[in-house]
């Protein structure tokens, strides 16, 4: 199960397992993100390189227009993946 929830405060919540099977759907769901956004990962249990690639693509698109993502509430395993991928140099991680 994977969901993208858009909160009233403008933040985006990633929920569940963000694996290769969710890649195309996630791109479609996140296509509407066009400005700086907080991505809440509190309920994100798992992510693979496919999911990281979607977030990377979104960050690149936003940076082209002077915006960026801020990722918050990453669980320790996902936080470690971001470190291994050196994504902590690309994303604001709170």
């Amino acid at each position, binding site marked *: 199960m994977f969901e993208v929830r858009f909160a009233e405060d403008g933040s985006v919540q990633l929920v569940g397992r963000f694996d290769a099977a969710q890649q195309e759907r996630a791109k479609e769901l996140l296509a509407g993100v066009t400005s700086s956004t907080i991505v809440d990962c509190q309920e994100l249990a798992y992510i693979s390189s496919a999911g990281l*690639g979607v977030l990377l693509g979104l960050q690149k698109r936003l940076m082209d227009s002077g915006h960026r993502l801020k990722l918050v509430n990453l669980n320790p*395993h996902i936080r470690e993946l971001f470190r*291994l991928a050196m994504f902590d140099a690309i994303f604001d991680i709170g």
Partner: protein
Amino acid sequence: MFAFLKARLPEGSADEETAFCVNLAAEELFTNMIRHNEGRGDHILLELEVSAPRVFFRFTDYDVAPFDPKSVPAVKLDSPLQERNPGGLGVHLVKSVVDRVTYEYQDRAMRVSAEKQRRR
């Protein structure tokens, strides 16, 4: 595949990291097999062995052409954002989260094995 792993991987806080890493490595190696192996095989065998010291798994893809995993370009982790792309990231993550990855090719079957030591 995930349901298969979930039903068989050890549970509990000490094994939480092991389960996460095995799930990740299995997904990355499986999707790489699908992406890179050229052949006529229509199924991939997954074998899993859980023991006290380790979790071991192996994918076997039958009737495929040889594939050299070293041909996948290494990911450039320190590139600026606009030059970063996800290519090669999966292989890098697998090498980082498991203790050993082995590729074998014999009789037109490609076997990829991985081993993760369990935290004691």
